[in-house]
């Protein structure tokens, strides 16, 4: 408690100093933000995402188009020496070599297609399309190239002359992918979830590949599924396309994560496949047409056997989405480029990376933008808090505290951990570590100044107020201040937890892919727990009344029930319910059996809780009710049980929380609740850790929500005790 003295003798110098300190911080933050939003000199972005990859037919040059507008070339025969072609102003979206390996074609979001001389690195020709481009495709014979862009049209150019031959479309939906067949006779482009095919020479529309029902008389998906038929085709935008070398198949990848092989002759799905765990980004056929490679946003490359559409190998290692894949110069080798800024060489036999080349190497670009945003936000929020401080408002003081305590942890803590996932050398980390430490040190000083008692007190209670007002205000502010620090501690622990989780190297794309499926189990978990706790409460109430009753039958029954159920493990009981009932020809649905097992088990434990609750009601209450002429039933219903319920609500809530997690045991009955789903999916894909992490997160979330609700209920029930 602070003394009257310290209230009265609030140190005006410390207050002014604090004010100046914050003012300086705010001004510097704003200056930094303004300078950087105006395009300041420091550019912390170091990684360039690879958007497409191409290997020249003579295997001498590997080209990677990146999102910084550069095309990175590696001369594979000269020790992977690197050169950079930088003329494009925006992100590259496609690169390709002509069959003679002499010309490199690149297309970019700036709307330009450039034809480069690979030897000299000069631009041989430049084509302006006037629209932001989405995809590029070059016919295998090098005669024509085609692009699609934001105008949703397919443009076909002659490579030799650079002249526009055809402009097809526009398609009714976004066109994200385009493909030419080997001779440049057919062109296919995505049209939302369907695919349009034209004759590339005449521009005649030939075919539309769209989703359909196996029973073609059924037109809607719902009708199709009702008739128990397969609904075939993509459900989301087509994001990658490739013709097989012999021109009989078209492979399409989609944002719905699947890959489909279409038979061009019939226009039907030849082989559907599981595809990736996230959007399919790129596909390429082997020249012999017997296998295909695909890369996806799930950071993985998959190899497909073309007859059948079965996945034969998965290549894992990219830290971010795979945007380009190519077959290497040996039969045992493939190449890939990803958004993590790397180009990787893989051995197909054991699916290991043998070589990594970086576009640029360094920290995440997130630094620059986050720091800049933080500076702007903290500048503005700091300005507001200054306003509050000047007018001696306690909220100004608290706002400033919150800003400089919680803010840095959130903004700087998370990206700092990102550093660990990129294999950087110590020097690179330190190069921006020092300014950061200085920044944090400065914030520490600000927080210290804000926390000084004389400063804090001066904002908590203006001197004009009475002593009791001052004391109340300071108590209130102290509470809020503690809350701010508690939030900071939570964030800090979560940041640490997050860093540990990153070390687990979890497959994020996989988790995202199955997230909603596992989430579906949360509802089942909640339902089973809620029904079971309902049953348990009824049983516990009866059990407790039985235990307290003088009737030997009631007493004996409930005593035996408690003894038996508490004396055997829940898992064993679940098995007995599950296996025993069918023996006496009682076949219950698994959910009912599971609910019974849990409810009966928890009922036994909760009987003791109820008994204690009822016994906690004083004798005087019984006497008062009896003296008023109430019957036994009326007495329990109106006087004893309502009071007992209020006493048992906290322990029952506790039991409910425990039950929500114990409900995972009914997964042995094949009930599709959280744990069972996690277990199933995890085993199928050899990723149990990932799926159980999701399940754990949901259990936690449910518990947190329930705890909040329980708190509200307790507060409501305690209304008669408030003084």
């Amino acid at each position, binding site marked *: 408690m602070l003394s009257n003295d310290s209230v009265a003798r609030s140190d005006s110098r410390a207050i002014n100093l604090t004010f100046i300190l914050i003012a300086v911080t705010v001004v510097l933050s704003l200056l930094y933000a303004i300078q950087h939003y105006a395009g300041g000199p420091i550019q912390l972005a170091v990684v360039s995402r690879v958007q497409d990859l191409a290997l020249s037919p003579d295997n001498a040059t590997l080209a990677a188009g990146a999102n910084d507008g550069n095309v990175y070339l590696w001369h594979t025969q000269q020790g992977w020496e690197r050169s950079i072609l930088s003329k494009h102003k925006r992100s590259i979206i496609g690169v390709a070599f002509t069959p003679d390996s002499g010309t490199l074609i690149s297309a970019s979001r700036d709307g330009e297609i450039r034809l480069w001389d690979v030897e000299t690195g000069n631009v041989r020709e430049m084509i302006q399309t006037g629209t932001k481009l989405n995809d590029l495709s070059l016919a295998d014979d090098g005669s024509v190239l085609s692009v699609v862009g934001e105008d949703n049209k397919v443009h076909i150019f002659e490579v030799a002359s650079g002249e526009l031959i055809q402009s097809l479309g526009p398609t009714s939906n976004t066109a994200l992918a385009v493909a030419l067949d080997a001779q440049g006779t057919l062109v296919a482009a995505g049209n939302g979830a369907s695919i349009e095919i034209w004759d590339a020479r005449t521009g005649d529309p030939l075919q539309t590949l769209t989703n359909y029902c196996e029973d073609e008389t059924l037109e809607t998906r719902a009708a199709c599924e009702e008739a128990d038929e397969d609904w075939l085709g993509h459900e989301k935008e087509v994001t990658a396309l490739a013709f097989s070398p012999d021109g009989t198949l078209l492979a399409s990848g989609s944002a719905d994560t699947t890959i489909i092989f279409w038979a061009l002759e019939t226009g039907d799905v030849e082989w559907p496949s599981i595809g990736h765990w996230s959007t399919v980004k790129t596909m390429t056929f082997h020249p012999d047409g017997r296998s295909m490679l695909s890369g996806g946003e799930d950071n993985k490359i998959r190899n497909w056997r073309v007859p059948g559409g079965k996945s034969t190998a998965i290549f894992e290692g990219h830290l971010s989405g795979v945007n380009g894949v190519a077959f290497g110069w040996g039969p045992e080798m493939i190449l890939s480029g990803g958004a993590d800024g790397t180009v990787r060489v893989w051995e197909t036999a054991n699916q290991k990376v043998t070589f990594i080349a970086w576009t640029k190497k360094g920290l995440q670009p997130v630094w620059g933008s986050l720091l800049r945003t933080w500076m702007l936000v903290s500048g503005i929020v700091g300005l507001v808090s200054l306003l509050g401080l000047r007018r001696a408002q306690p909220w100004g003081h608290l706002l400033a505290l919150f800003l400089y305590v919680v803010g840095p942890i959130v903004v700087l803590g998370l990206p700092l951990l990102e550093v660990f996932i990129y294999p950087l050398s110590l020097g690179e980390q330190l190069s921006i570590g020092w300014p950061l430490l200085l920044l944090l040190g400065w914030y520490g000083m600000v927080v210290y100044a804000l926390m000084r008692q004389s400063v804090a007190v001066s904002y908590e209670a203006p001197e004009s107020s009475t002593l009791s007002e001052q004391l109340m205000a300071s108590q209130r502010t102290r509470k809020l201040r503690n809350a701010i620090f508690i939030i900071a501690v939570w964030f800090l622990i979560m940041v640490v937890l997050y860093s540990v989780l990153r070390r687990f190297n979890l497959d994020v794309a996989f988790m995202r892919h199955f997230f909603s499926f596992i989430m579906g189990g949360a509802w089942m978990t909640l339902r089973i727990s809620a029904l079971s706790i309902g049953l348990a409460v009824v049983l516990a109430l009866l059990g407790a009344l039985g235990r307290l009753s003088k009737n030997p039958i009631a007493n004996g029954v409930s005593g035996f029930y408690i003894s038996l159920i508490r004396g055997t493990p829940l898992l064993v009981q679940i098995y007995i319910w599950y296996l025993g009932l069918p023996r006496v020809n009682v076949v219950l649905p698994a959910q009912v059996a599971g609910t019974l097992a849990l409810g009966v088990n928890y009922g036994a434990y909760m009987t003791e809780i109820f008994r204690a609750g009822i016994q906690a009601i*004083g004798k*005087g*209450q019984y*006497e*008062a*009710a*009896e*003296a*008023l*002429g*109430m*019957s036994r039933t*009326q007495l329990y219903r*109106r*006087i004893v049980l*309502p*009071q007992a319920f*209020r006493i048992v609500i906290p322990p029952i809530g506790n039991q409910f929380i425990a039950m929500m997690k114990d409900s995972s045991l009914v997964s042995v009955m094949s009930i599709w609740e959280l744990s069972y789903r996690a277990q199933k999916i995890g085993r199928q894909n050899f990723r149990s850790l990932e799926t159980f992490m999701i399940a754990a997160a949901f259990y936690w979330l449910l518990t947190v929500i329930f705890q909040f609700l329980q708190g509200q209920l307790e507060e409501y029930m305690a*209304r*008669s*005790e*408030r*003084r």
Partner: protein
Amino acid sequence: MTEPIIRVRDLHKYFGPLHVIQGVDLDVTPGEVVVIIGPSGAGKSTFLRCLNFLEEPSAGTIEIDKLKIDAQEPLRRQRRHIRELRQKAGMVFQQFNLFPHMTALENIIEAPMTVKGLSKQRATEKAEELLDWVGLSDKRDEYPSRLSGGQQQRVAIARALCMEPKIMLFDEPTSALDPELIAEVVEVMERLASEGMTMVVVTHEIHFARDVSDRVILMADGGWAEIAPPNKLFTDPEEERTRQFLAHIL
């Protein structure tokens, strides 16, 4: 002589081997106020609680407003009669025993509604009248935890009165109260007596006994030591036992 409203004959109560009440008789006429005083352990409270069967008498008969119950017969079979008898006898406890989960008003209307089947509206009207009568109209929606001891006891009296009892039993109603709160409860009891309620009061409040009661009973060792009008008992007691007790408390 009018017909007595309470008639107790040869009442005995044992707690195990302990003979707590040793065969007492009592007649109380309507409108009479009887105060029972005596040293602690004399069996005053037990006697009072036997009157409405909160303690089961071991032997004897109790008749209240022409409803007679013989303790010799199994009480189990007479449950219904006991409940009826309890409705005729309102009881006020030392520890108030208000229902803590109900507001003052809810405390009062609870029994009329559940036991007598009164409509909520009727019960509330009556309860509000009674709250006004005990001077607590402004506390109708407060929970007991927010009331002082004196206020709680006045609500408890209103609660008992709302059942429209024929007689009222007070079991040391002021013993748990702070001295300055006793007066407000005693005042209510005095008004109740002046309105003609038949009352049996166990108390240490000598002033109440002297000023309000019609008869004072000194109870000692499980029986009546002396029964007399207050001015006689307090000034000129006949028994040695009475003199001893008065010497202690006066």
